[in-house]
């Protein structure tokens, strides 16, 4: 896809994300050929859609599609890690496989693909939905539409079906792609919060002038833009260098940036931004939950720090 095609495609995607959510958006994406683009050019597909999805505060099954594509397993929905965790949702314990994960956008799935940490590595098993407990999550962000999936299986099941080539599952690569996707969604949501706060600051008059003229307000919004651009640059660089460490750093920066954006924008929107009459709260809720998916800012940062102190080596210098 050349630059012109991509621009056109992005315009269609934008309209779709603004108009639809959930299964309707999935159908629209399928019609637009997003799934094909995901197979052919993952960076273009992921960066464009997820920023728009974040900006529109909408939902789709696209994150699950990204995991399927990366693991080469579609069309079985791949279970996400449990909230707060970046580890596979399945774990071999004693003679059982303990499953604790999340899923979105697969209401009628007959089965799930569960990646399992076996202690020696990772494998994957297809588990019938009936063998698991599903709890639709209301929670902090009821509009996100995630379902919590739990269960415990006999360990014999863990040797079940593996992807096409029968090789071990590359969980770190799939996780890195999911982190980048979520990073872009966080950036999209952050940019939209900034736009909402900016518009309010220009309109809202106090002491006979728009509050946008007060330096305290301006600097909060400037700091928000810095935080958003910081995350955005790190995401672009992570695509460029392709390493899993960079993807984790970019996700952490996007999560931190989004929380900074939520804090400053909520403060600028003040009273109205604290009500459900303004849309800001939907974004605040969304970024708080997205930050917890596939590793939170805090857990990713902590894990990186421990690894840096263990190895004594910084990640390689990003090349010019």
């Amino acid at each position: 896809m050349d630059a012109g095609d991509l621009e056109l495609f992005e315009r269609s995607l934008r309209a779709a994300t603004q108009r639809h959510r959930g299964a309707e958006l999935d159908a629209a994406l399928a019609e637009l050929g997003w799934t094909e683009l995901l197979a052919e050019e993952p960076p273009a597909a992921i960066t464009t859609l997820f920023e728009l999805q974040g900006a529109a505060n909408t939902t789709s099954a696209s994150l699950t599609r990204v995991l399927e594509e990366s693991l080469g397993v579609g069309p079985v929905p791949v279970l996400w890690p449990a909230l707060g965790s970046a580890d596979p949702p399945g774990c071999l314990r004693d003679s059982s496989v303990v499953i604790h994960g999340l899923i979105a956008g697969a209401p009628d799935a007959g089965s799930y693909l569960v990646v399992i940490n076996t202690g020696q590595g990772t494998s994957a098993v297809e588990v019938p939905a009936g063998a698991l407990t599903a709890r639709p999550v209301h929670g902090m962000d009821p509009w996100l539409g995630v379902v919590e999936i739990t269960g415990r299986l006999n360990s014999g099941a863990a040797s079940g079906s593996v992807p096409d080539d029968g090789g071990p599952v590359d969980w770190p690569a799939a996780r890195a792609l999911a982190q980048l996707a979520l990073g872009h969604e966080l950036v999209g949501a952050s940019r939209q919060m900034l736009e909402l706060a900016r518009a309010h600051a220009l309109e809202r008059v106090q002491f006979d002038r728009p509050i946008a003229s007060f330096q305290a307000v301006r600097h909060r919004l400037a700091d928000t833009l810095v935080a958003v651009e910081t995350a955005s640059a790190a995401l672009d660089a992570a695509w460029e260098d392709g390493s899993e460490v960079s993807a984790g750093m970019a996700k952490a920066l996007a999560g931190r940036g989004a929380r900074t954006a939520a804090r400053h924008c909520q403060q600028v929107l003040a009273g109205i931004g604290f009500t459900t009459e303004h849309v800001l709260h939907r974004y605040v809720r969304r970024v708080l939950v997205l930050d917890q998916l596939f590793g939170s800012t805090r857990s990713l940062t902590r894990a990186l720090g421990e690894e840096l102190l263990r190895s004594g080596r910084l990640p390689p210098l990003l090349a010019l």
Partner: protein
Amino acid sequence: MDLDEFRTTLDAWLTDHEAELAPAPEAHDTLDAQMAQLSKVKRLAHDAGWMRWGWPERVGGLGGSALLRAYLGEALTVRDLVEPGIYSMTEVLAPTMIDYAQPELAAAMVPRLLQGEETWCQGFSEPGTGSNLAALSCRAVPSEHGWRVTGQKLWTSLAQYAQRCVLLTRTGTVESAHRGITALFVDMDSPGITVRPIQTMHGVEEFSEVFFDDVEVPLERMLGREGQGWSVAMDLLPYERSTALWHRAAYLHRRLQRLLDSAPAGALDPTVVAETTQLVYAFRARSRATQHRLARGETLGPETSIDKVLMASAEQAVFELVGDGLAVGVMTGDDLENRRWRSEALYARAATIYGGSAEIQRNVIARRLLDLGKDT
């Protein structure tokens, strides 16, 4: 020459000439020694052609993308061959000369800067003019052969070493603000110039007060037209926040690695180490994108204020961590290595002050990038 070829051949040359290029053990200890090392490295790199790549042929360059210059500075910095702050003055002042000096003047002067023969300084700030640059009052009046300058500059980095100065002067009324400013290229040995170095908190006479008493500057030394000085300054500032910052990011990466190598077990908090590493990575990612925009010929503008804010945050994070991880050395060590850590840790405190303070950068972001209108 493309970037990959440049990278490979330059890296090989740096390895082959390691001994010749290497700094003396005490090369970081004084500014005199740093300047001598800088001049040596620039001369060797210029003679071998490296220093000429990425600059136009009309000023003695060999042409090619600006990315080549960015990589050269990075390569010299990661090998600890130059101090990036003083190295990057070239990246700030040479483009100004190329864009605004008369072609003969640029052709005569820029090569002297590239080959390490000369140091130039930037006479912008004044006692009454820090953040509010448009209020400057150092006056130039027409004289028989050009301009006669009277006034004072402050915070002029490296003035005591400099042979030339890119000087902003007031040629209109004070009320004319940014419209009445003219830029001049002044010989620092002109009669009437007095330089008084100032000792900084980090123990270096990095900048000076410079006094001008009826200093004659020939007409052909004007940069741009009369009254165009504000454009000269505004076009120069993004250079302070592009290639120079790319070099600074390489420097921060190297010092952070050195900190990991040196800190005693248990002295570093893993979360803070990782936050700092993420910030340095993001700063480098942002600066990389800016380098590529510059190389594509895009005009850099107020968006480079984000690069500057990020640089200051990253630098202060790195040296806050140094203060914790190497506390004993930084607070009480008096050997070469610890003197260097201490000096750098103190210098980092200036990162939110120089080159447009953190507050000014945020004002620029609010006004120019977020379009929030005038402030009160």
